[in-house]
């Protein structure tokens, strides 16, 4: 099991900021596109596996 050790002189803090509707929409679009991209990659990998003679 690993651990992310933040540097001693740096403190990871997330500042409060409400997510605007516009940002929310952009994130949703990003997620949709990313899922599609990953599924496409998986499909390609599967196709490669089936076309390469074993």
């Amino acid at each position: 099991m690993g651990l992310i050790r933040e540097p001693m002189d740096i403190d990871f803090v997330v500042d409060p900021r409400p997510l605007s509707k516009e940002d929310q929409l952009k994130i949703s679009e990003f997620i949709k596109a990313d899922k599609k991209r990953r599924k496409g990659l998986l499909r390609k990998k599967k196709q490669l596996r089936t076309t390469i003679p074993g």
Partner: protein
Amino acid sequence: MKAKDHHIEIEIDKLTRSIENVITSDSFPTEITILENSDLELISKKHGWRFDWKAEFRLPDRDVYKLTIRDNLSVIQGLISITEKADHVYIHLIESAPFNIGKQKVYLGVPGNLFAFACKLSFHRGDEGYVSFASKSNLIEHYSKTLGAKLFGNQLMIIDTIAASRLINKYFND
């Protein structure tokens, strides 16, 4: 758990991983549990906390979780406030305890632990690990390097499925 509009549907009451003592490098198993009313007294600005966690706790769309060492549940090591959006988990706030801040910090790994927890929650909800948060501009590079988060614009960062899986493997690989 508190009754809230955007409530966590699955029960994750306890998750175990660890943080590391800076001086001894000893590792201590930790737990993440929902913040209780009785904890509020200890997490005030008077006790050195930077954010108003009492206010955060009372917001209806937020869930606040605390990180503690398994054998010392009364001392809060860090806090995270999240909202479950339709397709991902949004982190409003993360803060390490005052004694885990700065060059004299006692334990390492508190924020990473909390980020990994948010990713785990996202997977449990069926959101494939996606987590977003607003970063301070000076921390964007660090978040990118250590968490694998991607800058989305307007200082918004996203942890995608692959980065989330890596984070979870670091902390929950047991």
